[in-house]
């Protein structure tokens, strides 16, 4: 196809727009709806072209003219999902468009029959053996044409899909790459390729055409491979290059922020998205997850009602409603809606995991395990499901058993503090203090979301009577809590202050001790102890009047893991 030649350098928006417009019509003619939709969305985000700038419709060949009637008829049958009929009338057509539609109808017909077959199979074990019978034939025919190089971008794409369905993944990757080279603007081929790329090494080893669409693909891949920072950078570049109005990019950025749990950023982006595209349903389940995490009941309720009005039989809608019920602690209903989502699409990963969470809430651990296992089956890299399994076994009081699952989750998200804290807790339960300490410290180092790691580490040190380390940790903890600005519910500043006060008192650093004791008095639960400590300090001071020298000298030389601490000024605390 000529599209291959159209690869222009990035930045020429008019060119891009022209390319998009032509590819949209190509996709539409072939019934590739999702690729058409993606391209249209992107084209909509770009400025309108003047009339004379519009790209000319592709040349109409003799073959096309010959097949015109058959093609029109077949396309209408195709649109009405009468695939066999469509294929029948396309047989013998020689134009490329007709050939693609012919093969594609046969493929879809096979898929449809497979789905129908699944419902009434002859036995439970036969259930999984239902295959798309058309695949083998399609593969043979397509490979024959492929060998002589007669396939264009679209048919190559179809060939790739067939190979993937036959689990010939290596071959499929090659064919998709070829398809992309021959027709870079077909987003469907990129997407299929993205499903087959499992790691960054593989991604780097692929030779991809140097086209502006590659940036979209790379950004998408980075998000998939959890390399959020790189993904965000890519998307930012795209926005700066002129795609700022694209809803697709906004939603992708929002999802990326969601993945690194930057909730506020993600929320604001989703709100923006909803303003621009109020009837959008895609990605709204992610949005509802965010609202759920933030416990924003009214917003979630509004979103749920809104989506039900748009289309209540969508997976996303069901997930949003499920989240809504879950937030209202109506877990049975929530589970029901997640089930509905799964009935609509059993390969919907999020729903399996969320359903697992609901069953956990209902204390139905076995069902929860099942749900998580299903999620893992759909996608082995789903860290939430692994984490959920770990939590389930933790609830069942099997700390050793859950280690395996937490480890898996940690492996998938090495820089997520939650897994590390969970691992640390499990190790602590197993009295493996050394490992637990390592986990907590690591959790703090990677940026603790819940601000719990330091507190736990401090308590652990306290238990092990490593008072210097404990004091260090408490100090870091206090610093951490106050530097993040917002008030956390579970903050145990008073505990930290109490310990620090006692610690300084024991080490005869009375000024610091009295400072801590005074701070203690700000908290209800530690007030009495603070006062007692103050009294003790004044007693001791009366006996020996020794001025204390440098504030934190003894601590800063300490050779504990907590080394990067700077002397902190307790005065600046604003509890």
């Amino acid at each position, binding site marked *: 196809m000529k599209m291959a030649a159209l690869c222009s350098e990035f930045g020429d928006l008019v060119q891009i727009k022209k390319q998009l417009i032509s590819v949209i019509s190509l996709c539409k003619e072939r019934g590739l*709806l999702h690729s058409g939709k993606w391209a249209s969305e992107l084209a909509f985000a770009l400025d309108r072209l003047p009339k004379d700038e519009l790209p000319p419709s592709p040349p109409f060949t003799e073959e096309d003219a010959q097949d015109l009637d058959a093609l029109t008829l077949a396309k209408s049958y195709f649109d009405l999902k009468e695939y066999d009929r469509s294929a029948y009338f396309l*047989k*013998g057509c020689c134009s490329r468009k007709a050939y693609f539609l012919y093969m594609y109808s046969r493929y879809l017909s096979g*898929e*449809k029959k*497979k*789905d129908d*077959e*699944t*419902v*009434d*199979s*002859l*036995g*439970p*074990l*036969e*259930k*999984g*053996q239902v*295959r798309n019978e058309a695949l*083998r034939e399609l593969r*043979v*025919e397509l*490979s*024959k044409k492929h060998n002589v190089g007669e396939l264009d971008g679209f048919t190559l794409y179809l060939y790739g*899909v067939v190979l993937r*369905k*036959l*689990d*010939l993944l290596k071959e499929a990757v090659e064919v998709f790459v070829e398809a992309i080279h021959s027709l870079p603007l077909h987003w*469907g081929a990129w*997407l*299929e390729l993205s499903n087959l790329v499992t790691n960054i090494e593989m991604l780097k080893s692929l030779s991809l055409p140097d086209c502006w669409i590659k940036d979209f693909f790379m950004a998408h891949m980075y998000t998939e491979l959890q390399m959020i920072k790189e993904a965000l950078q890519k998307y930012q570049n795209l926005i700066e290059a002129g795609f700022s109005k694209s809803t697709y990019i906004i939603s992708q950025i929002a999802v990326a922020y969601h993945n690194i749990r930057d909730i506020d950023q993600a929320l604001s982006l989703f709100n923006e998205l909803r303003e621009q595209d109020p009837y959008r349903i*895609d990605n709204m389940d992610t949005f509802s997850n965010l609202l759920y995490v933030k416990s924003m009941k009214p917003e979630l309720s509004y979103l749920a009602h809104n989506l039900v009005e748009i289309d209540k039989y969508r997976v996303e809608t069901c997930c949003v409603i499920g989240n809504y019920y879950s937030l209202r602690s109506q877990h049975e209903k929530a*589970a029901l809606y*997640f*089930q509905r989502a*799964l*009935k609509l*699409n*059993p*390969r919907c990963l999020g729903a399996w995991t969320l359903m697992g969470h609901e*069953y956990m809430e209902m204390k139905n*651990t*076995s*069902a929860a*395990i*099942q*749900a998580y296992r299903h999620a893992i*089956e759909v996608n082995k890299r789903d860290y939430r499901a692994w984490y959920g399994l770990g939590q389930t076994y933790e609830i*069942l*009081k*099997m700390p*050793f*058993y859950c280690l*395996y*699952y937490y480890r898996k989750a940690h492996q998938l998200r090495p820089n997520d503090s939650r897994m590390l804290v969970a691992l640390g807790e499990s190790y602590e339960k*197993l009295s*493996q203090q050394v490992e637990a300490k390592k986990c907590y410290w690591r959790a703090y180092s990677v940026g603790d979301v819940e601000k719990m790691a330091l507190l736990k580490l401090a308590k652990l040190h306290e238990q092990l009577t490593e008072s210097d380390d404990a004091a260090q940790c408490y100090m870091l903890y206090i610093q951490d809590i106050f530097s993040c600005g917002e008030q956390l519910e579970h903050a145990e500043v008073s505990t930290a202050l109490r310990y620090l006060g006692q610690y300084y008192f024991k080490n005869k650093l009375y000024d610091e001790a009295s400072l801590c004791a005074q701070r203690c008095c700000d908290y209800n639960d530690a007030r009495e102890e603070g006062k007692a400590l103050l009294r003790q300090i004044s007693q001791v001071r009366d006996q020996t009047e020794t001025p204390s020298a440098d504030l934190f000298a003894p601590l800063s030389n300490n050779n504990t893991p907590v080394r990067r601490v700077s002397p902190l000024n307790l005065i600046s605390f604003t509890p």
Partner: protein
Amino acid sequence: MASVHDSLYFNPMMTNGVVHANVFGIKDWVTPYKISVLALLYDMTASKITLPERRRLNKLILPLQQGPDLTLGQFLKTVEECCPQTAYAVKLRLHEMADGELKDMEYFFSTLPTPFTAFDSEAYKTSVVGLFMRHMLLAYNKLSFSQVYKLYKSLQHYYHSHYAKPTDGELSLPALVSNDSDMDLTSTEDTVGDRIDREEVDAPLHESELRNDNTPSRGPLSQKQAEYFLARQAYLLKNDENKALKPAALQEELNNMLKFNPDFAEAHYLNYLNNMRVQDIFLSAHSLLHYFDRLILSGNEGKSNGDEGYGRSLRYAALNLASLHCRFGHYQQADLALQEAIRIAQESNDHVCLQHCLSWLYTLEQMKGSDSTVLTEDSVKMAAHFCLPYLASLGIQSLVQQGATQGKTAHKLMDALKDTDILHWKHSLSELIEISLAQTTSIWRMYGKSTMALQQAQLLLNMSSLEPVNFGVQQNNTEAFAVALCHLAELHAEQGRYSAVSEILQHLKEQFPPHSQHAKLWMLCDLKIQFERHMNEGKYHLAEPLVTAISALNKTEGLYRKAQVLKALNRSTEAYNILQRLQVHCEKTKCTEVVIRVMLSTAELHWESSGFSTALPLLLQALALARQHHLQSLASEAILHLAFTQLMLGVPEHALSVLHEAIEPVLAHGSVMDKGRALLLTARCQMAVAGFRPNGQGQADLHLAVLAVDTLNESAAYFSKLNCKERLRDVHYLQAQLHRSLGQTSQCNKSAMLFRLLDQELQSPAPPVSMRL
């Protein structure tokens, strides 16, 4: 971003968010095979068959009904063996259906004798046959329109695949193509060309095709088939690994099965076992956890059956995890998992599970190398209390093992083993019977009673399998067999029957291929035998490289062998250092046998520096230890050493009297080498007592000298059996001297010549005869 191609897969069997594989609770589905069985039953009731044939057929019914699906070829062959006439009738009936139309199958089902009407026939509703027919009719009537059509299609495929003898799985393809060309009359020519091309294209594709769907011709596995497959493979893995599928092939089969039915939890378990085979900790842990994750669901269903629900499988999950870590030598991890299992079991008052945990606990302690006698005793008591014969006798066996190494009195141990044997036979715990026999072999061997050991080993090897389900396995390939065979090999090696040894080792190699779990046993055994052989033949340079290999398999043994080689190569200081280290180590780990052997070796080192009197206390200590632990062969060995020392210290009379004590057991049970050495020493003592001097001076006691000649002849026979030339040389030297003093010149010359020949052959200067045993 849902792709267009994400199938609209909808699973109707999903209730409550959970997929039930078997939602109707029916295991029986009508399959083409079942139709054939029905046809057989029908023909059996309809036609006249002679009595013996009928009997044979009747015997066939139950296996056919309950067994896994067979191919038509297999099925017809089995029937034909019983009654060719019926087989033909069945074939005809199937042919009618398969080559006819759908209505023929429908007609067949309608003509089946309904079990409710046929009162007098075998197909009455309560009979086995009747029940089966009712099941089938019910299942058939439940089928929807399209399912009936599918059944008919698969029947046709089933029938035709038997006759068409498909060379590859392409059978359905040409059929489809011809359908196409029928439909499309306008371009027939094109399609014909197409077909030829396609076949050409197919040929190179075939291999990759096979890789992906290699089982298209085999048809779907039924539930029963899958269960049978899993059970068979699991059994084989346990008892005879060689007969099971190769790890890779099995993995592929399992992947296939799991792809089709991810809910088949047992497949995950087999996966775990298979991964254990190839020592893959990651995958085996993964599969094990997956299995229990799945099991928890089914355990929940079992609640109605009075089971305790999934809590039960939780404890066993933790326990299994412990055993997994134990197998991989992660003792700390195993300990943690075990503690978890124990805690959960305690919380739910599950004594049986606790008992299992306890037996694992002492096993773990044992593996860690600490004393666990008390734990084991407790475990046995509790197991007996809860009527768990398996665990109880396993515990007793473990106790016996510990007792044997700690030097408990022999009769007590044997009594205990005898008692457990009674228990085993009562409950027909064949696995434990095997272990018990192997253990008895080992104990006899340790005590130095080679004849008894030989007998016990033979007993085990000649025992036929007692397993109720025997998948054609004549002999189980368990650890017990490996141990017994290794003992057998070593016993033969001791007697110098090396051809028998190599045969046994060959068998071991075949039965336990190098990658398998118990292969280390025979590897060590093989190395030890080779080492001994080289040492006996004086080829130290060949023995030396073996030491490294032995060390890899068993550190202690390796060190000991290293010391031996060094000693033989006269590097005494190094040998002494190693022996000292080894002694300290072994005293700590309570390896009495090695301690005694180390002491004897140390004593030999003292001899080399002529420190005969310093060797004495060591030897006495060794003797005392050996006696205390009833280690007869080592005790005799110690006595031999003692006698030699006395001889060297110039008290041959004492030496001879001490020797009398040892000579009997050595001749009865000892190895050929020991016998030869003992006799050589006796001869030397006799010569010394007779007042015999090397230079022929003095008055020799002629009577004793003649006796010494006999003894020497005998020992020469033993040494020549082992091809132990160095010692033969010594013998010939002594013989020549004796003969000379007795005035037998011709014999003297003959011995002298033999000595000369050997001396030339050996080249190495003969060590002073006096310096070694």
